[in-house]
């Protein structure tokens, strides 16, 4: 084919006649989506910081030196500001930049783990109810309604305080509470697909139900799953920050961003950067994840943008 099109000059080549390949279109959509690129870049930067926190941090996150407490960050017009502590130090003299870097680990880890647990629960319930319908759908709907009527923050606070706070407890409590959006979205996505011809064809061929769900349904609802996963990871990070802020999440001396805001609360009227920096970090991380999720949705299903 190619030899024919290159045989005579003046005639367009095959590449010019053919439409751009699906891959090329996808790449164009990805790189044309500013939000997606910004979100991915910021998230990658934060992941990098979290992974290499030990290497790139200027100090130790737990190292308290009271003689150097409450040093303001370098943009502050104060003689005390020093490049030794670019973001200053907290009330116990711990380097703020170091704590910020290590805090990224906690946020990302809790966010990802809680999202993972809730994703498994929600996807299983949603796909089951969407695929089987009828009684199964009724039962799942009932569980979902019950879950939605429980106040998340309150139940999470109560359970964490009763059981005792630890990373594992926070992850499980959040994971068991925030699967609702997974279930809702996976259910409607499965409902749309289960009556299509290729599912009927697989049924006619005698494929087992688990096989149909895993090889016919799941790959086709994967993009929805990824979008919800990003939103729920952001949700889990915000909830962890709120729990830690209220003193019932990550416990001192761990450098959780929510806890850092909480610890600085009493001094915020004098040293406002103490709450500004960790708060901005949570905001940036959650914003990046949300932008990434919205971007993925726009790129994989541009027809549902509104």
């Amino acid at each position, binding site marked *: 084919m190619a030899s024919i099109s290159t045989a005579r000059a003046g005639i367009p080549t095959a590449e010019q006649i053919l439409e751009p390949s699906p891959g090329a279109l996808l790449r164009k959509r990805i790189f044309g989506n500013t939000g997606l690129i910004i979100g991915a870049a910021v998230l990658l930067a934060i992941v990098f910081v979290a992974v290499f926190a030990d290497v790139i941090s200027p100090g130790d996150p737990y190292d308290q030196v009271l003689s150097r407490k409450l040093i303001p960050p370098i943009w502050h017009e104060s003689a005390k500001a020093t490049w030794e502590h670019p973001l200053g130090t907290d009330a116990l003299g711990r380097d703020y930049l170091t704590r910020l870097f290590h805090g990224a680990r906690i946020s990302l880890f809790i966010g990802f783990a809680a999202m993972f647990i809730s994703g498994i629960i929600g996807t299983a319930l949603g796909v089951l109810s969407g695929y089987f319908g009828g009684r199964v759908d009724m039962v799942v709907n009932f569980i979902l309604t019950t879950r939605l009527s*429980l*106040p998340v923050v309150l139940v999470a606070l109560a359970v964490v305080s009763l059981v005792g706070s630890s990373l594992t407890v926070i992850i499980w409590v959040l994971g068991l509470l925030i699967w609702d959006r997974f279930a809702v979205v996976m259910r409607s996505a499965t409902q749309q697909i289960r009556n299509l011809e290729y599912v009927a064809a697989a049924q006619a061929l005698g494929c087992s139900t688990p096989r149909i769900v895993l090889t016919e349904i799941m790959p086709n609802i994967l993009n929805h799953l990824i979008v919800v996963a990003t939103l729920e990871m952001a949700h889990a990070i915000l909830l962890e920050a709120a729990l830690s802020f209220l003193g019932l999440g990550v416990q001192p001396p761990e450098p959780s961003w*929510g806890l850092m805001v909480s610890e600085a*609360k009493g001094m915020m009227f004098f040293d406002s950067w103490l*709450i500004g920096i960790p708060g901005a970090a949570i905001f940036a991380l*959650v914003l990046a994840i949300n932008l990434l999720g919205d971007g993925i949705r726009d790129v994989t299903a541009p027809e549902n943008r*509104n």
Partner: protein
Amino acid sequence: MLAYALKRLGVALLVALTVSIIAFSMVYLPGDPAMALAPESATEADIEHIRKVYGFDRSMVVQYLDWLFHAVQGDFGQSHYLNEPVANVIFDRLPTTMLLGACAITFALLLSIPLGVIAAIRPNSLIDRIALTIAVVGQAMPSFWFALTMMLWFGITWRLLPITGTDSWKHFVMPAIALGYYVTPGVMRLTRAGMLEVLASDYIRTARAKGLRPVRVLFKHALRNAILPVVSLAAVQFGFMLGGSVVIETIFAINGLGFLAWESITRADLPMMQAIVLVLSVFYIVLTLLADLLNAFLDPRIRVT
């Protein structure tokens, strides 16, 4: 309609019953509640005494039924910490939280519905972009940080608003914004999507072709149809918000149900915790029930399914 309403009511009751089991058994998660109540110096005999006094020595099922039997009559037992009937304390604090919630949802709707409508009239315009930015930023802002930042600027730097308490309407401005802004993205997106869909429909074209004034088409014909899902979302979000008020009330020292919840959690006041979780859940169940019934009343298609 009646058949649908009865079926929906039955489901709501069943959900409420399930929630009551969860709210009740939640406090037994760590094991023995008597151990949690006892001071550190308590002997085995003291703990046994506590077990007897509070009835923890009975079986879980008996305790639950006893609690439920009294709860439906409005008796949630005695607060371990305040030594007052739980119900009295809750109904003392509830109006403050309701007022805060009402202010917050009003703020959210006043901001998000106009923005959503304008964004739908001129898609991809500057205002649409601004509305989208507000939505994206709003969803990413941790509410406690937003509240503290507002406190710092409006309360301390510019001295415009009081930072804590509930003495005047001014005290409710910042808490209402902090609580309500989280609702705005969802409401705005739903308004925008609904308006876009309605504005593209045939009857709007007909209304325009008849020569009706654009304002009339927009508000009388389009918005009235697009607002319906927004109303049910607002009802649902109001329920969510009361649960979320725990953070905001703690920050602004507002003596409502959220603050009470936080106090009772930190003091391990078990009957209070059970009651607050149950009351907020039932409130949410009632709100969604009313929203569903309203929708079914206005849109007959829903009743059939």
